[in-house]
């Protein structure tokens, strides 16, 4: 947004709405930031400091876990498996630039104080962009063809004149292009969404002379083939991962109904259950705030208060002490159709402890294939 405003101001009346547009973009940016801040401050006031994560380490974490693919390749050749998770990549970057504490939370400080590594990083990072563009869930390797036609057209029309004719697109997308070249996480297609329109438009600009000279019949056939193959691809391979299963959905619906009135105190649930059930599953003793991007969490140095507050036995005791007399449920998911926990991001699951369930009444059980979810009633103690 800031880039769009600045470039519109520079281009003036030569592009679109010119300086008036620049002012509008600047005003919009300001309004968005103010609205965001107001909303966050309102929440923070309502919750108190224990109930919010300010995310001060967000940009630091985002930069540190987005190490260039070429550096990751070297690292994984030297130490296989060393770059497979965000936390491992973060730790790898700590070795290059120092920790959050070393740099007082400043990325610039880390880069300036490790100039050799900084140069290596900045020189290798741009290769992430083409590597991400050709992903099957991005623009696929087919993107090379229309982008080659762009080069051909620029050669025919002259580089300066060709690029100048694309001025509106440059004004719109120069900043996202720079951002994607030097910052964003490689091999993650959604982060390319801001730049993808530019790439598609550029591709169309490259092939429009060919469309112009092709027969209507040929264009029709190619279009139909493209539509059918795209539809087949979406239908057969449109989703790469899985974040839920029929059992998880059914068990969540059951919990949602059970806890609809006043909520329930439930142990730490897999995120697909906790996030999709619109009922309070932490009534009586909420889980503590978790800043999963803070360096302490990355290093596995969880604050003692956090460890104490996630313990299931402590939560039950705390809820009763506060007068909670609603349902207390223990959910035991055994899911093998997809990985419902992550080691890094779900520490509460590892740290909450396993209670004895042999004397607890089984309230409900859901099974489909190898997936199973059991719900035990802890209200009867």
């Amino acid at each position, binding site marked *: 947004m800031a880039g769009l405003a600045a470039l519109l101001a520079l281009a003036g009346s030569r592009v679109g709405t010119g300086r008036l547009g620049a002012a509008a973009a600047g005003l919009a940016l300001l309004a968005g930031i103010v609205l965001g801040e107001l909303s966050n401050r309102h929440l923070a006031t309502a919750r108190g400091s224990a109930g919010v994560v300010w995310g001060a380490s967000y940009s630091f974490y985002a930069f540190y876990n987005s190490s260039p693919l070429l550096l990751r390749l070297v690292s994984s050749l030297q130490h296989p498996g060393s770059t497979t998770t965000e936390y491992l990549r973060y730790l790898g970057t700590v070795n290059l630039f120092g920790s959050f504490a070393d740099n007082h939370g400043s990325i610039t400080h880390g880069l300036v104080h490790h100039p050799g590594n900084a140069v290596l990083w900045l020189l290798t990072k741009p290769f992430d962009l083409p590597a991400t563009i050709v992903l099957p869930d991005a623009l696929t390797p087919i993107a090379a063809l229309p982008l080659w036609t762009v080069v051909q057209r620029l050669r025919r029309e002259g580089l300066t004149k060709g690029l100048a004719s694309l001025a509106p697109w440059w004004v719109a997308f120069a900043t996202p292009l720079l951002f994607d070249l030097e910052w964003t996480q490689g091999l993650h297609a959604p982060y390319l969404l801001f730049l993808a329109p530019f790439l*598609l*438009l550029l*591709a169309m600009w490259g092939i429009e002379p060919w469309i112009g000279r092709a027969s209507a019949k040929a*264009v029709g056939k190619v279009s139909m083939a493209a539509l059918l193959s795209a539809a087949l691809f979406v239908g057969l391979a449109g*989703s790469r991962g899985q974040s839920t299963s029929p059992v998880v959905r059914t068990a969540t619906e059951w919990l949602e109904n059970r806890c609809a009135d006043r*909520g329930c105190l439930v142990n730490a649930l897999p995120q697909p259950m906790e996030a999709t059930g619109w009922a309070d599953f932490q009534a009586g003793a909420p889980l503590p705030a978790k800043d999963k991007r803070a360096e302490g969490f990355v290093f596995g140095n969880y604050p003692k208060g956090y460890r104490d507050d996630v313990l299931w036995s402590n939560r039950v005791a705390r809820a009763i002490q506060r007068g909670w007399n609603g349902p207390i449920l223990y959910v035991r998911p055994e899911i093998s159709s997809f990985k419902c926990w992550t080691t890094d991001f779900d520490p509460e699951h590892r740290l909450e402890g396993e209670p004895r369930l042999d004397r607890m009444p089984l309230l409900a059980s859901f099974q489909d294939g190898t997936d199973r979810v059991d719900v035990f009633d802890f209200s009867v103690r």
Partner: protein
Amino acid sequence: MPPGLGGHTAIGGQPAQFAVTDARLVEVGAMSRTQLPGLTSRPGEAASSGGGVPTRFLASIPGGLALVLLFRGLYLVRFGGDPCWMNLNFLLEAKAVRFGNAVELRMPLSRIVLYLLREAGASTALSLGAIYLVAHSLLAVGIFWLGRAVLRNDPRVRAGLAIVVAGVPMFATDSGYRNIACTLGAALFVAIAALLVSPGRQRLGLRLCAAVVLGAGAASCRP
């Protein structure tokens, strides 16, 4: 559609440049003179005459948008029951607002919209699906407008752009769904870029106001 975005100019109000460009294509043998409408008649007139009814339909903004929504509907029918991992974070934020749980303070647009939809009784799939369809509509229309700012006024080119936007895996697979804040943010950004960089000054006030509103949304929507 904002005024001045196609329909009466060949390439964003630069017909002379268009003619030079195509003349160069003749020189290098890429096109024959009979296929250069811009050199045999006024660019806008000749260029808009190409293509059959399906092509002209897809070349229009509503036609292109219909094709895009058809593909997004296909994705939702096939995979819409799975919220995807990144979206679970936004759903958690919305839920934290509703039930008073610990919340991560990020830019709030996604959580506010999800909160409103969930609180109104929409299911997870319906809430995400609604944002997904609105975001992709904005994204598609924004790309079509931006296309009209530079690409020639040829229905086959415009229909081609609609087909590409509808079917490219970047938008049509879960890349365009699994981080709904990214999709929404990109859509809002592209929409305001289209409003601000497209040629023409008619209805300028309306365009600027729309850009401020959409832009404020984009600026408060960080993944």
